[in-house]
């Protein structure tokens, strides 16, 4: 019988509810968050295997409240003794830090709800053989290599199986299971001192919830050829011009634009200053909610944990708050921030269910989840047709923004010039820069539902101690007027 992608390692049994009973006497209120996550990474390069790795995470985070303060202790020792020791550590730390707390903790911040959630079915890892999958990845690298000048062709797949259980001493019991995939297909072309990279939507964008059905190899292999050909096109392309032009961004770049200049500045813990020593503060102030005209009236942004298949969909956050779809920005006006119940209580502002942690060994903080730009009414032809001279950019390759989320500079893999309402020449090294609010106020057209596409990233970094988390961003293509664009060069 052939070896399938599914792995069933031998672990000792663990029952979070039974474990909660072991530690009930240790604090005024307690919770256990159990995480088991299997990350499979399969990668091929230039027709050969590059990596075959499996990362198994398994442990618990214990929250203990004493004297109105919560402290956390994480352990992978799931024996009774290990759980008890962690609970006692958390209780001791809660007691010791209570007089120095930022805010008094309330168990109401962890709703006493019970629920089960499973991400949309799809084909499990046991539906695919390892040998077959490896040969598909190798074939993909061969399709990417459309010419001798392609020096690197990479095909990579990450398959994620996650199971979480959150139980608390006042009755909370949430079980969630997720199956996710992430794909990367990329080519680097080199000739005559010129090097250019091209990938399928950017190196980390193709992230979804789903199973092996997300690998439609007929479509993917065809698209690999297109990626390789575009890497070759870029070798011969002219530099993106250095001038102020209209800028049309594809959904696979909108994801980054939304992430950096909407998602992060709206995080309530940033606004509260928790993040000031690391990623930074925010230009958004508490009094801006309900007042600030963040962008043009075409701008409608939602926190949407309910979109089927999007990378960060879930039913409950890691503090057990039921996750619902909420408008963050409507017709350009800022309405609501991205903050869980703790931040909402500290600020006295509405938020969303986004109190999330990277794994069992990190305490939850305010994260993005899915933050999407709603479709408008324009067709692609109408958007392009409305531009006399501009640039159309696809797929992120460079990103940087200041610690208040104002001044940004982003770069893309591939661009086309727009002249008199038509896409014309291919441009290499496309970059643009701007300032968040003026940029969003220049939003002049939003693509319709037909052009709305969901992407994401597995690598959103934030927090102290640091955490990377998965986020989703869906958007149609959008047009911005009068943006500083520029190309490469010394």
């Amino acid at each position, binding site marked *: 019988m052939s*070896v399938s992608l599914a*792995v*069933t*390692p031998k672990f*000792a049994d663990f029952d979070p509810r039974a474990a909660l009973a072991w530690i009930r006497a240790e604090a005024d209120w307690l919770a256990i968050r159990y995480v088991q996550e299997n990350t499979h990474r399969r990668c091929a390069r230039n027709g050969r*295997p590059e990596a*075959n*790795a*499996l*990362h198994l995470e398994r442990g618990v985070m214990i929250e203990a409240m004493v004297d109105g*303060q919560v*402290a*956390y202790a*994480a352990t*992978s*020792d*799931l024996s009774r003794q*290990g759980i008890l020791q*962690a609970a006692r550590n958390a209780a001791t*730390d809660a007691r*010791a*830090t209570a*007089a*120095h707390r*930022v805010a008094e903790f309330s168990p109401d911040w962890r709703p006493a709800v019970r629920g089960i959630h499973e991400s949309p079915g799809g084909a499990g890892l046991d539906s695919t*053989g*390892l040998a077959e999958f*490896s040969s598909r990845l190798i074939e993909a690298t061969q399709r990417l290599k459309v010419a001798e000048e392609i*020096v*690197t062709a990479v095909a990579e797949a990450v398959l994620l199986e996650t199971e979480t259980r959150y139980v608390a001493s006042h009755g909370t019991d949430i079980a969630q299971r997720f199956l996710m995939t992430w794909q990367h297909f990329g080519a680097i*072309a*080199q000739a005559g*001192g010129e090097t250019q*990279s091209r990938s399928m939507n950017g190196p980390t964008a193709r992230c979804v919830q789903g199973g092996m059905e997300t690998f439609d190899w007929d479509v993917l292999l065809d698209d690999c050829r297109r990626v390789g050909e575009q890497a070759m096109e870029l070798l011969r392309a002219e530099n993106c011009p250095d001038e102020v032009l209209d800028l049309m961004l594809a959904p696979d770049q909108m994801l980054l634009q939304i992430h950096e200049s909407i998602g992060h500045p709206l995080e309530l813990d940033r606004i509260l200053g*928790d993040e*000031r*020593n690391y990623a*930074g*503060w925010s230009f958004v102030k508490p009094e801006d909610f309900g007042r600030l005209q963040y962008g043009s009236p075409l701008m409608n942004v939602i926190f949407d944990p309910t979109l089927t298949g999007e990378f960060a969909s879930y039913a409950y956050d890691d503090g057990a708050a039921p996750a619902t779809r909420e408008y963050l920005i409507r017709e350009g006006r800022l309405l609501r921030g991205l903050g869980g119940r703790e931040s909402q209580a500290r600020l006295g502002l509405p938020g969303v269910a986004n109190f999330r942690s990277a794994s069992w*060994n*990190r*305490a939850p*903080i305010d994260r993005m989840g899915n933050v999407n730009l709603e479709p408008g009414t324009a067709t692609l032809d109408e958007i392009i047709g409305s531009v006399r001279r501009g640039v159309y950019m696809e797929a992120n390759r*460079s*990103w*940087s*923004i*200041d*610690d208040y989320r104002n*001044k940004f*500079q982003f*770069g893309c893999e591939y661009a086309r010039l727009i002249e008199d309402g038509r896409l014309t020449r291919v441009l290499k*090294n496309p*970059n643009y820069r701007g300032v968040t609010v003026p940029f969003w106020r220049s939003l002049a057209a939003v693509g319709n539902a037909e052009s709305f596409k969901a992407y994401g990233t597995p690598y959103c970094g934030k927090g*102290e*101690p*640091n*955490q*990377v988390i998965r986020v989703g961003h869906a958007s149609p293509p959008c047009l911005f007027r009068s943006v500083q664009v520029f190309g490469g060069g*010394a």
Partner: protein
Amino acid sequence: MSFVQARRQLLDALGDAVFGQLASGEDLILNLAAEDQHYLRFNGARVRQSTRVRQQRLSLRYQAHGRRVDFTFDLCGRIGSDLATSLSLLQRAREEVTALPEDPYLSVVETVERSDTHHEGRMPAMDELLTLVAREGRAPDFTGLYAGGSQLRATCNSRGLRHVFSTESFFVDYSLYTVNAAGENKAVKGLYAGRRWEAEPFLGGLGRSRQRLGLLEWEGRPLEPGHYRVYFAPTAVDAIIGMFSWGAVSYSAWKKGDSALKKWIEGDLQLSPLFSLSENFGLGLTPCFNSLGEVAPERLYVIERGRLANLMTSSRSAREYGVPGNAAESAEGLRSPDMATGLLAEADVLSMLGTGLYIGNLHYLNWSDIQHARITGMTRYACFWVENGRIVAPIRDLRFDESLYRVLGTELEAVGATAEWIMRTDTYNQRSLGGSRVPGILVRDFRFTL
């Protein structure tokens, strides 16, 4: 028994049991990364989150029949259970190699070296730390992270190799915030790190940070984007040197078309003879063995007086490209960078700068055009406008987009005579080990764009 001692025993017991199961032709490397840490996050000198993390991650790198698989899992710390998981993964590894294609670039460490290093430390009592921060950090506004406790890295293989490195250490990575006369937020960054906690150096550092913060309360000087003469303090230089680990001096990145310094590696462009950079394990901040158990030379010059000395080359790259390796880790970044000092005395920095910008820190660097080694990023924290050798005003933060070929090449005027030790404070997945030693630099002409 201490956390570190218990993990050493567990690794040895697992190694003995699992290696004993191997057949001829099978190779197995075990890597253990463990920590027992207390993380305290502060905002406004108060505790935002207190998190203790006790974790122990075991990696099994299995090779047989020209194939390789890597499995990692969280040990529970009990030999019976952990051995059962390890053996189930060993069985899975054997199944996988029957299904995978051959990998021609595998390497096995033939030498059977052994080493064992432990650095003992003394962490602060939590009460003392909380009281100090509460007393000293209310005004100005203290925000930051304390991390302290034990860390262990160990590698052993089925041929008898065994390296262990463990340390007890701490850091307080903090920012002090204030508001200037114009109502703008201003901040300085501070770091106190070491193995043996003492209150005095922590308080001394806080005092110096507070003094610097006073300068930031002066009226700010908005500057237009453009070209300026700039002094980068060591913490800012450290951010630039960090970019060398994003493929710039990696052998495989160069061959794959992913190195920002391709034109320099191939001799088309030059870096300044004032610039030298080495990998220096003599700093003692991080183990000199990699995850294969290979021991790196204590010092490896990467750039010597602007010229290429060595690229970071892993065994895999060595096999693939037929060149000698230098025990680089698979990512081929710098684990212990040490930039050579120059002649610019600390006392002369402002006078040599004359009129221009003093940049204390940089933020969020990324390649903007990798072919031309161009980096974009922001100024952050303590950055000042200097006129005729005197600090006259803090600046509003600026975005830059500039090439390493200019910053560390044609425009590099002087390098600081003293270097600063900067401990790593990143804690993704686990607390990092290591740090760097870098001086400040004076740059004749530097481009700000926004």
